Every structure is written in C-alpha cells, then in structure tokens.
C-alpha cells in the first residue's frame, strides 16, 4: 500500500490517465479497425477497455479512501476533502478582469464524489457493455456501437474527473455528442435521426447557460478550477444591475417608454444568483428538467442498453453532479436554490403523471427517469447535497436494471415481433413471468427499489431527500448581505415535500402497472404453439403474417447469461446499495458514502439551516413515503393484476379527453411546436423572403444584369476570327512603338533638403538612349539626369528640361519654380497655384 502511495502521489496521480486512456483507446481501435477485427475482436476490445478502466477506478477509489482515513484520525474538524490530481498539459490562458492570467490546464482531479461517479460509470458501464455484446449481436453496426459506447465512457469520465470547468465542459459536450450518435444509431429510420437531433438541439440551450456561467465565474472569481472558484466564491456576492441594461435611462429613452419600462430603482441581484441560474439552465438541459426535458423520452429511440447507460444511469445525472459540485455557489443564493428545488419538484410530479398511461415500456421508464431526476434536484436544491448525490448513485443501479430488464423483454419479444413499436408495447406483453424468470425477479426487485420499499436502495435515498426537503432549506446571513435578499418561505419546504410524496405515489403506481402489465396475466403477444418453427421466411415477411390473423410463435425465451448476469448484479446492488448511506439508522458503519462526501459539502452545509424539530421528524416523515408505496403499488395491483386493466379502460372512456391529454404527454411537444418551433419557423420564413426578394431579387439580379451587359459589350470583340485578334495586336504594337519612339520630358522633384537650405533636386524620368539637358534661369545648361536648384525666399526661377532620344527627336518641358516670402512654402507651377505637384511634365 505504501509503495502504491509513493508511486502515485496525490498531486500527480497518473493512474487517472489510465482510467481515461483505456476507453479512448477502445473507441479508437473499434472505430477505426472495428470492421476488420470481427465481432469477437470488437467485443474483447470494448470489454477489456472498460473493464481495465473499472479496475483503475477501483484502485483510485481505494487510494482515496486510504488517504481519507489517514487525514481524519482523531480530530473531525481537520478533515479535509482529499483530492487526487493529475495535470496533463497546459492548454491555454485567459486574461482575468483584473488583468491577471487565468491558466486553463487539461487537468483532472478526483475527490470522493468524482470517484463514486467513476465507479458507477465504469462499473455499470462494464455490465452494460457485457449486456450489449449479446443484445447487439445481430446488428451490422456492432463495431460502431462499441466505439460510440467506449467514447461515451471516456467523455463521461472526463466530465466527472475534470479539475476545472473547461475540462468538464469538454466532457459535457462529449457525452452530448455520444448521446446524439447513439440515439440516432439506427439512423436509417427518419424518426430515430430526428430524435437524436432533438436531443442535441435542446441540449444546446442548456450549454448556452453553462458557457455563460463559466464566463461569469472567470470574471468574478478569476479562476475556473474547482478549488480556485471555492476559494474566491465570496466575490460572487457582488451586486449586478440586471435592469435597466446598458445606458438605458430617462435621458436615452422617450418619456412614455421610459415610464413604462424603467423601474424607480435599478434592479440588482447577486452575481451568485445569475451564475447559479445559468449553471442550472445547463443542468436542466442535460438532466432533462422542466422545461427542457422533452428530448429524453424521444431519446428512447436508441438501443435499450444505451438508454440504460446514458439516459438513466450516467449522463443525465451530470446535471445533479454539477449542482452538487458547485454547491458552494448555490448556497450563496437562496433564489437559485429555490429554483432548483421547485423545478425538481414540479418535474418529478409532472413526469410521473405522464408515465401513468404510457403503453410503451421504454417510455414509462423514460418518464420515470425524468421524475427521479426531479427528486435528485429537490435534494440538491434544498441543500441535501449528499442525499441528492446518493440518489444519483442508487438510481443508477435500479434504473439501469429496469432498462436492461426491459431490453431483455424486448429481446424475447423480437422472437416473433420485429416492429420496434409493437415489440415495446406493454399491451402485447403480459404473463412473461413464467417465460423470463430471471428478468421478472430482477425487474420486480428494481420496481420495489424505485418505489421506495425498505430496506431497498431507493428507500434510503428518496426518503432522505424528502425529509430534508421538509426540514431543511438554505439560510442567509443577513448581517453581511448588501442587498435585500429573497428568503426561503417557511411553507415552501413542506410544499415540496408533499409534491414529492405525490410523485412517489404515482411512481409506485406506474412502475407496478408496468410490472403487472408485462409479467402477469395472459401473454398477449402471439399464440404460443409448442414446437413452432420459423418456416424459413425472412423477417420481411412477418408484416404480412401479422395482418392475416392471430400470430403464432414459440414460447418467449429467457435471454442468455451475458444479459442476465448484469441484471442479477444490478438487482443485487439495488437491494444493498442503500446501506452505503442509510443515514436514517444513525449507525456510522452504514454511512460510508455520507462520511466520504461530508468534507466536500462541509463549507456549503454551513449555510443550510433546518427546523428546530427537524431531527425528531426524521422517522415520522418516512410514514407518508411508505404510504405512497402502499397506495400506488396497491392500486396498480388491484387495477392491473386483479382486474386486468379494466378500470384504466373505464377511465379512458369516462374522461376520453383527459386520458388523451395525459397520454399525449400533456401535449407539451405540441406546445413547443406552436411556440418555439413556430417562432423559429416564422423567423426562417422572414429570412427566406428576404433571401428571395432582396438577395436573389435585387442584389443578385442587378449584379447579374450588369455583368450580362458588360458581357454583351465585350462579346462583340470576341469575334472568334484569328485575323481580328491579330489586327488588334498589330494596332497595339504600332501604338506602343510610337510611344517608345517619341521622347518624353517627365521629371520628379525631391524637396527633402528644401527647408534647411532652399535646395531642390529635379530628376528627369529615365528612357532608353535618352540624353538630358537642364537649363536653370540664365545660367549655362548642364547635362545629366539630375539638377539641383537653390531658391531664396521670394525668388522665382524657370527650369527647362530638354530630352533628346536615340532618333534625335527633342522634347522640352518648362518648369516654373517660385518661393514665397514665408520661408517654408514652395510653389511649383508659378505663383498663385498652391498645389505642389511632386512630379509632372508633358508626355
């Protein structure tokens, strides 16, 4: 252990390079050589890369924990958050607001939060790689798939390991890219490609917020490193004038407008609020919160293991990670915290309500993910950073397990139904418990976990969040405040709590609805015939069969071990992971994660205050959570297991419009189409008109007409007859010859020395065979190209230049020179002319 520690010192922890390099290498090899490697080779490469990365992450985690222990012995106060850092290279520098240089390095740093994320990414990543190697076995894009998947792991690791915001942003964009590539993995289907594009575009809105936040942090804190931001975070308590912007004032605006839009006093907020809201905009995009959640349900167009890894376990939790990571900024602004918590609560309830009536198994899970992400944001929003992050951790296991279970069900449905929509429709399932025992049990365990049944993982994390929501909120230190700050009202915490309980009830209901519809009752997919054999028809023929009448087929088969092993492992974690932070039991042995995370949030937690009776409520507050499970799960059991879904159909008939509205996701997509998309469309139409009429119509036509006219004129000269061309050549040569034969008496004047001595130097222009003669005033003529003339103030002289060429032709040029009484002014060309030409002469 000591040798290991000295090999990898905390300030130069090169093992991180291994964690990062392996998935990158896997992505490169599979992406470039994958086709030639063959499926076995690709599979080995991908699994080895992510597996090796997992082992390196595990070693990193062990190193981190051992160092934490060494620091924390004896005195609790001295416990510092341990960071293992590795700086790869200097990237670039920014200039800060005070003129200082802000270095941006490609540097990676790992603390307990990053290390746990690394284990989740590589560990669950490995299981999902293993699962995919079976699930995607038949796919032609096998190597492409694994290249993307490895690349995703690399980008996600960059995101959580980045030591500064810029590296985080690189990973942030990287996972967005991989998400886009994998959602549109089967891009031949227009629908899938559109889903990928939607995810990408919606994420751009969020990224805009993140870039804005980075710029503001660099401006105020003078650093983008986590440690640097935390050290200078109080500078974010500068007031910022948000309205009116710029120099809008009563002087610059017309009176009525100024009265209308200008407030009596400028509106000021803390920079921390702006930064927090901008960061949260980024997080809302990545983590699918209201109102940017719309991409996640569509993202289910990708392969199911992708949904499990990217759109449930890892990437979508990046937003929660980032809020937890920047908790020291958020605690400065109660308004930003409240925005996070309220958005989370609203999303949790809203998404859960959509999940109620979905019939597509993957869609149910997608809305469940959105809803659970809402819970996580409630956690980090009320200041329960550990609890929120812990829910990321537990959710990764049971949601990945649910998605992989759904994948296993879909895989077996593909035994006879090949249409994507029909094979995922729960109305075609039912009774699969007998055919798919392993999938059924793991799915049931995960359902119990997500519904919050003790002692499964979801119970510990979700009830911790809800209790904290009831009891805790961020407080403000009024003594140092420079602005009147928005304070957290007392009713808000309980309100969030009860919204959360309602969402938990709905969660239990729709999860067990999915479970009962899939695994219980009669199998509705096709008529199971013993010993049924495919009659050698290709897949393409099945569509015809389906139209002809009840489909016949073999009994659905349980998936092979490569798919069931990940299910079993994840289900085991769904059961036991909760004991890694079972805070409610108050046993130190059962809170290792909480203990690791505590130093990271220590400073931020100082700002979190609670109700005086909060501690007493801890166990009491669990009762509504349990009741939520009992009510939701019980209702689902009665409706779907006992009465086979009849009450849902009755409800749909009694309130058809309400049912359709919820089924159509409250028509939020249509709302977006009508507002945002419609606005962009209208804008595009305006630009199209401008392009058509102004650019094409006026500018292009006028210039085309001009060029056309010039072309017509010039075309007249292009006769195409050799003689016409040669004639113009002859005329041109004759003209040139004439010019050369004539002498030209041109000259130039150099007046550099004029101010000092009154001297001017005149030089004749050179020519072949020329002979020059200068006559200055009455003095005798001189030969040579140059002549020097001296002018006294008030004097006038006439200079004559005579040029004789080789043919004895003579040209003459008279140059009158005069100088005024003022000693510095010279006139060339006689008195009265005030322009002094530098050269002249006849030609």
């Amino acid at each position, binding site marked *: 252990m000591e040798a290991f520690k000295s090999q990898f010192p905390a300030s130069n922890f090169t093992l991180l390079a291994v964690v990062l390099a392996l998935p990158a290498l896997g992505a490169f090899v599979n992406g470039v050589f994958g086709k030639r490697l063959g499926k076995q080779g690709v599979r080995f490469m991908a699994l080895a890369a992510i597996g090796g990365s997992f082992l390196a992450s595990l070693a990193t985690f062990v190193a981190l924990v051992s160092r934490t222990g060494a620091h924390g012995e004896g005195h609790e106060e001295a416990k510092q958050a341990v960071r293992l850092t590795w700086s790869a290279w200097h990237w670039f520098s920014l200039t800060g607001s005070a003129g200082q240089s802000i270095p941006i390095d490609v540097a990676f740093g790992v603390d307990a939060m990053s290390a746990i994320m690394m284990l989740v990414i590589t560990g669950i990543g490995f299981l999902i790689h293993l699962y995919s190697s079976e699930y995607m076995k038949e796919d032609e894009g096998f190597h492409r798939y694994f290249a993307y998947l490895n690349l995703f792991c690399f980008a996600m690791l960059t995101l959580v390991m980045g030591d500064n915001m810029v590296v985080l942003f690189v990973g942030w964009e990287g996972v967005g890219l991989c998400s886009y590539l994998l959602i549109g993995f089967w891009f031949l289907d227009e629908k899938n490609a559109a889903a990928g594009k939607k995810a990408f575009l919606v994420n751009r809105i969020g990224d805009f917020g993140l870039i804005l936040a980075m710029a503001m942090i660099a401006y105020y804190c003078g650093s983008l490193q986590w440690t640097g931001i935390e050290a200078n975070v109080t500078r974010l308590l500068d007031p910022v004038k948000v309205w009116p912007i710029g120099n809008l004032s009563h002087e610059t605006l017309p009176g009525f407008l100024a009265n209308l839009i200008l407030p009596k006093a400028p509106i000021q907020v803390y920079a921390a609020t702006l930064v927090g809201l901008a960061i949260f905009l980024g997080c809302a995009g990545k983590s699918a919160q209201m109102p940017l959640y719309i991409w996640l349900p569509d993202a289910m167009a990708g392969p199911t293991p992708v949904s499990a890894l990217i759109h449930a376990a890892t990437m979508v939790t990046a937003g929660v990670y980032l809020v937890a990571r920047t908790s020291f900024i958020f605690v400065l602004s109660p308004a930003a915290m409240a925005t996070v918590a309220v958005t989370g609560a609203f999303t949790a309830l809203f998404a859960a309500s959509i999940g109620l009536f979905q019939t597509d198994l993957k869609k149910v899970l997608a809305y469940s993910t959105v809803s659970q992400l809402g819970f996580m944001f409630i956690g980090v929003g009320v200041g329960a950073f550990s609890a929120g992050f812990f829910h990321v951790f537990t959710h990764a296991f049971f949601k990945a397990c649910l998605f992989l279970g759904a994948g296993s069900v879909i895989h077996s449905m593909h035994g006879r139904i090949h249409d994507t929509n029909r094979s995922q429709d729960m109305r075609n399932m039912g009774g699969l418990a007998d055919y798919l025992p392993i999938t059924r049990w793991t799915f049931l365990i995960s359902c119990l976990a997500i519904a919050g049944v003790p002692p499964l993982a979801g119970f510990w994390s979700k009830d911790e969040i809800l209790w904290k929501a009831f009891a805790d909120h961020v407080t403000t230190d009024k003594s140092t405040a420079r602005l009147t700050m928005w304070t957290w009202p007392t009713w808000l915490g309980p309100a969030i709590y009860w919204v959360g309980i309602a969402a938990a009830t709905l969660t239990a209901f729709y999860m067990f609805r999915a479970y009962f519809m899939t695994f219980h009752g009669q199998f509705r997919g096709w008529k199971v015939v013993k010993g049924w054999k495919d009659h050698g028809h290709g897949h393409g023929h099945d569509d015809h069969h389906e139209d002809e009448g009840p489909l016949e087929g073999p009994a659905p088969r349980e998936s092979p071990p490569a798919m069931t092993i990940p299910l079993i492992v994840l289900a085991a974690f769904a059961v036991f992971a909760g004991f890694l932070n079972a805070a409610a039991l108050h046993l130190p042995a059962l809170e290792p994660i909480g203990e690791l995370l505590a130093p990271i949030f220590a400073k931020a937690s100082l700002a979190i205050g609670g109700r005086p009776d909060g501690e007493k409520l801890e166990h009491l507050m669990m009762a509504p959570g349990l009741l939520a499970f009992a009510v939701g799960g019980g209702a689902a059991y009665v409706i779907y297991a006992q009465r086979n879904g009849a009450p849902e159909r009755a409800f749909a008939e009694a309130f058809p419009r309400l049912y359709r509205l919820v089924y159509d996701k409250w028509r939020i997509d249509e709302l977006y189409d009508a507002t945002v998309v419609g606005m962009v469309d209208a804008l595009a139409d305006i630009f199209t008109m401008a392009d058509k009429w102004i650019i094409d119509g006026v500018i292009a036509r006028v210039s085309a007409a001009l060029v056309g006219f010039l072309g017509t004129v010039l075309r007249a000269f292009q*006769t*195409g*007859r*050799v*003689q016409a061309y*040669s*004639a113009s050549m002859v005329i041109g040569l004759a003209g040139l010859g004439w010019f050369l034969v004539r002498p030209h008496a041109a000259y130039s004047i150099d007046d550099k020395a004029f101010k000092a001595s009154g001297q001017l130097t005149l030089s004749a222009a050179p020519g072949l065979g020329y002979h020059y003669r200068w006559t200055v005033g009455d003095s005798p003529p001189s030969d040579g190209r140059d002549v020097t003339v001296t002018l006294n103030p008030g004097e006038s002289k006439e200079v004559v230049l005579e040029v004789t060429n080789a043919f004895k032709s003579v040209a003459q040029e008279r140059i009158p020179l005069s100088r005024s009484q003022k000693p510095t002014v010279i006139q060339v060309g006689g008195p009265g002319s005030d322009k002094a030409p530098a050269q002249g002469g006849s030609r």
Partner: protein
Amino acid sequence: MNTIPLEYYLVVGAVLFTTGAVGFLLRRNLLVLLMSIELMLNGVNLTLVAYNRHYPVNHGGQVFAFFVIAVAAAEAAVGLAIVLSFFRLRKTVRSDEADLLRN
C-alpha cells in the same frame, strides 16, 4: 569596298514584314496565313542578319536568326498539323470557319 548600306536591308526587311502582316490580316486561307507568318519571320531574320553584319560584336543577330529559323520550322510542322485536323473537322481551310469556341 562598296557595301550595300544597312538601310537597304532594313527597308527590304520592313517590306517583307509588312507584306506578311497585311497578308495575315487580310487573307482567309489558313495555308496562306502560314505562308504569311513565314514571310514575317523572314523579314525579321533579314533585319537581324543585316544588323549583325554591321555590328558583328558577338554575332548575336545571327544566333537569334538561327533560333527563329528553328522555331519557324517547328511552327510550320505544328501549324500544318492543325490545319490538317481542322480540315478533317470542318472540310474547309478558311480561317473564319474556325470559330468552334465562339458559341
């Protein structure tokens, strides 16, 4: 010894050149055009050689004339080949029919 003055040669050369130039501009038969070019080249050659005789410093005029003769031979070969292929194409040797690039 009575020598013919330089000016006589120059005048003959100028007359030859002008004849060639006018012929090149006015005639429409490609073969005649080629011959006109030869005439112009010969006028230039005569001028060069005449200058060389009067200023025989390094015989640059004669060397230049040899170059012109060599180039004229090459030009005649290429020119005749062009005329031949043009005739195959258009069944004529009139220069004003050679307007394929115009339209």
